[in-house]
């Protein structure tokens, strides 16, 4: 499926240049007192939204930046400008 993503550094690029980094799940949980359930929730569990989801991408064949974007999973179109994150 065709996919175009907007890299915050390089602009619109072919989706095959990017690596998907998973659904946005908030910050990594603190390791102190971390339960197996909470870790599993962070690592494995997904909402699998059929619609717009916030997700991570890495421009692996380009500048290498990690960023989040909003994409509609039913049509593979970005719906927002990506928010640059650290």
């Amino acid at each position, binding site marked *: *499926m*065709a*996919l175009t993503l907007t890299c915050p550094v390089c602009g619109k690029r072919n*989706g*095959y240049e990017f*690596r*998907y980094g*998973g659904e946005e799940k908030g910050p990594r949980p603190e390791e102190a007192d971390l339960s*197996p*359930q909470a*870790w*599993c*929730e962070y690592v*494995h*569990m*997904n*909402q*699998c*939204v*059929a619609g717009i989801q916030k997700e991570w991408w890495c421009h692996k064949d380009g500048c290498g930046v990690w960023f989040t974007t909003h994409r509609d*999973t*039913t*049509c*593979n179109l970005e719906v927002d400008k990506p928010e640059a994150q650290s």
Partner: protein
Amino acid sequence: MFGKVKPLWGEKPTLKSNYDAVIIGGGLHGLAAAYFLARDHNMRNVAVVEKRYLGFGGSGRNTAIVRANQRTQENVPLYREALDLWPILTKELDYNLMFYNCGNLNLMHSEAAMNAARMNVATAQFHGVESHLIDAKQCKELVPALNISKDITYPIFGAMYHPPGGILRHDAIVWGLAKGAAKYGVDIHQQTEVTGIGVENGKIVSVETDKGRIKTPRVLNAAGGYSAALSYQMLGLKLPISVLTIQAMVTQPLKPILNHVVSSGAYHAYANQTLKGEIATGAHMDAWPNYTTQTTAYYIKHQAEALSEMLPCLRGVKFMRHWGGLADMTPDMAPIMDGNDPIEGYYMDCGWGYFGFKSCAAAGKYMAQFMDSGNCPAMLKPFNLRRYEQHRLMGETAALVNYTPDN
């Protein structure tokens, strides 16, 4: 001839307000569970609720390959049972499932791959499943069209040969199981969308559909590609699943040239000749989750390159059709079959990725046992959802190619 055709599963039933079990998803797994519930457990007041039509999803989009040469001890017996069930179901359902046990050939392209195959073969043989390791020359003897020369991208070192595997007609199984289930009194409701699942005091009480409310103590989530989204939306229960579009295609029909299923992890391709003569081949998966089921030119090119090296006689043959379906991938490439945890009466048969076709008969049989007794059969215990938080992921990723959005 052009009159009104009555479907094999009878006239459209009216939606009752009470069922003993509601099965979400009119695909192979849902229909198989319904069939075995009615046949073996005398639970006949069962509804199969399908949003679109029977076999719309993965059941009608797969490439119909069956085999039982998986990597792990837990998986092989389940798939073997499914393999044994095809001839039995063909008779029982009185419907020709067109089982052609032509055998599978998993090509290996390095010494390391041969060693991995050696372990796979040992697992299969331990479970009494016929599987051998053969060298490149024997591959050529089995499939004369195969290119075993050294000057291709991934020269063939040998293969894992699994004679009992083969292909079936996938639509026939959908229709056959629907016919069988309906014969025992199961109500099949197509074009009926589940809009909610009612839970009270940690127990399933009802299913809301766009055609009305159904009271029921049991629900089976067999919604295939949509099972994870459904689970989260309706019950707030997240599953370790990523939904990816997977593609397949067929060539124009040819005279018989390929009498085994041939697959290659390195070329990322498999091919078999259907009984119609078309070469059915796959399988490219998008590297990011999506529900589009759309196809790509990128993949046509990939497949043409792979096939013209592996099977050079196919050069110049045209692709006729190309389609996509959804694969609900788990991190360990093994399914989630669980129930009564954390919600009593809520059963799951999902996360099948692209193995749902070859397993449907056995999965349906054991899920029916589970739903009838409320106790998980020993066969399904390793597939529980809690294995992920216990870090007891299965080793299926060691077999063939690992498809997840994470690699």
